[in-house]
């Protein structure tokens, strides 16, 4: 190394400690209180039963250029999924870039799709050249929300074994399965539950990446014109289904 990073570390921390304990206040304005701030209040609101939360989630997703359908059960969601993939794929033998069957909320989904003439590509190592090229050809990506929020139309995807980031990132269309039981009112309510169950820290640290996605990829960089699908998907379509039977 060109310089000693540990020496830099100690010097920076020492400077900060000196500044904080020195006679001169670090802020121009004095603080109103010295107590640590409490847990932040929810910025957005939603309430109602699961059905109503599902509708609010969908409406919010539509507001940000996404789309959704609410289906009665897993069977109906599966039928709709087959229809959409056949409509969206460019060629009949084109693969869907997907999460592994066991990471999806419909029993034996991979097998059922194969029977319907849809093959899934579940990548194992995207740093491999040929795997990467194969993944890049897919037009449809299939995942499932680990959590969703009614008040903002956001979904949460956690990376992991059989849960590639690429499936929600590379294809132009992203199909996301949203079991109703995973819809929460707000992001803050979801965090509160995880915190209460002492699961928040492990949820964040077990996965390499957690992503909150709220609608399709967008930009307004060109003279404020809204364009969709700049890098990520242009279509984010949520198949919400009742899994509480």
């Amino acid at each position, binding site marked *: 190394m*060109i310089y000693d*990073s540990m020496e*830099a*570390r100690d010097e*920076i*921390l020492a400077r*900060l400690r000196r*500044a904080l304990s020195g006679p*001169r206040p*670090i*802020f*121009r*304005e004095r*603080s109103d209180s010295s107590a*640590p*701030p409490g847990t*932040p*209040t929810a*910025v*957005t609101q939603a309430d109602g039963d699961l059905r109503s939360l599902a509708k609010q989630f969908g409406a919010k997703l539509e507001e*940000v250029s996404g789309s959704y359908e609410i289906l009665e059960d897993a069977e109906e969601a599966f039928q709709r999924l087959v229809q959409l993939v056949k409509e969206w794929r460019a060629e009949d033998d084109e693969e869907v870039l997907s999460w592994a069957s066991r990471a999806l909320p419909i029993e034996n989904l991979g097998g059922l799709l194969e029977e319907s003439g849809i093959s899934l590509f*579940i*990548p*194992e*190592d*995207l*740093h491999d050249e040929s795997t990467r090229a194969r993944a890049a050809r897919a037009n449809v990506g299939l995942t499932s929300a680990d959590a969703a929020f009614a*008040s*903002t139309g*956001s979904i949460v995807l956690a*990376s*992991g*074994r059989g849960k*590639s*980031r*690429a499936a929600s990132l590379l294809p132009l269309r992203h199909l996301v399965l949203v079991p109703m039981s995973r819809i929460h009112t707000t992001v803050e309510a979801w*965090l509160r539950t995880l*915190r209460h169950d002492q699961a928040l*820290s492990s949820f*964040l*640290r077990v996965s*390499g*990446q*957690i*992503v*909150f*996605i*709220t609608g*399709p*990829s*967008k*930009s*307004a*960089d060109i*003279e404020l014109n809204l*364009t969709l*699908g*700049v*890098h*990520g998907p242009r279509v984010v379509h949520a198949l919400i289904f009742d899994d509480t039977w």
Partner: protein
Amino acid sequence: MAVDAGAPYLTRVRQALADDGLRAALDRATEHLSGRRDQAMADIDAQLLRDEAGAVRRYAIEHLPDLLEQLESNLIGNGCQVHWARDAAEALGVILEIAREQGVGDVVKSKSMVTEEIGLNDALERSGINVVETDLGEFIVQLAGEPPSHIIAPVIHKRVEDIAEIFHRSLDMPLTTDPAELCAAARRELRNEFLIADMGVSGCNFAIAETGTICVVTNEGNGRMVMSLPRVHVVIAGIEKVVRSAEDAVLLWQAASRNATGQDVSVYFSLSSGPRRRGDADGPDEMHVILLDNGRSRILERGYGDATLCIRCGACINVCPVYREIGGHAYGRTPYSGPIGAVLTPLLDYDIHAARDLPFASSLCGACRDVCPVKIDLPRLLLDLRSVVVERNASPMGERAAMRAYSSVMRRPARYRALARLAARLGRFIGLLPPLSIWRRSRDLPRFAAKRFGTLWLERARDDEEGAAE
């Protein structure tokens, strides 16, 4: 480029003011963004959000060394490599060393002001490494060979016709002003870069101390690509980016989204807690986090900690009447423009003489303070910085001479009366001569009244006496 970032401040301002197209673009964009921001804040309890966002940022700065140590230990626990850098040179040294060790030839970057601050692209290119900006706006300014002119909307100063011309020239595509087609061309071009890049470099919006998590906010998804596709991910985070918890980060994410673009939340909020785990198909094999000081600890030492609360939403820039006239490039070789830029630029490791004019690039109207999501009193910081410039005798010689003359006149009633009589008679002409003619280049000289206030006062007193006598 209409504005030469290396020219003196007043030259830059004159160049910007002479460009009518620039001012039309700025007007339209800043009005649009601040309108959307106002709407998004009207939908919620704005005061509560500002109070809470300000409080969690203050808490983080007040506990900075402890939170940084906690962050470091959790990042390492998550499998990250942590580096500390006192200044830009050290940060660049670390990145180049990682690139050399890993045999990196191609780098993709997501939008990051701190990488602009340390001049990363130049350093990589000088070492023969190809670096591509992947935010659409940043990609356009990179093709044009210009710096970004706004922290949220880097290409705010360009019309679609300019962008069409740049794409036509650089990407060898037919001339078109259709934003969707331009966007699709950028997608094709950049997708290829993402797939071949060996290293991704991102900034960091918030770093969660409790879990060792780096949070990046984007709308396009380029941030997530940079953090997910290359084998190596390097994060450069200013030391002030650390926050206590996931709850605090989620609050600030919403505050930033509403204030930057008027969205409830940004499209992507990517939280990386280290390299890919065993069995993961994608994600980097190595994740490095560089914690950069570069003048930030000195800002606290000097008592300007308020400036480190900033979450880079750009709301203060969009409402600033000065920025709306001159745009970002007139602030010089700094990625930070507008009111927060006029504060941060002289406070960071920039030469005080090069940045001495920026605290004066404000009318102190207070619009920036009113919109700031973490309640930074920007006019106060600007005023304090002005007095530092004056105390250090860093203000221009002519101005100091003028101030001395002013003080000698104002402290001597006889001189003041004589000069005021002269002004009343010759008021229309004295503005045409130096030094006032220079001052008037960027300001209007008020008309002098035909009668002095003192004369009016005496006359009124006389009238009253006469009235009383009658």
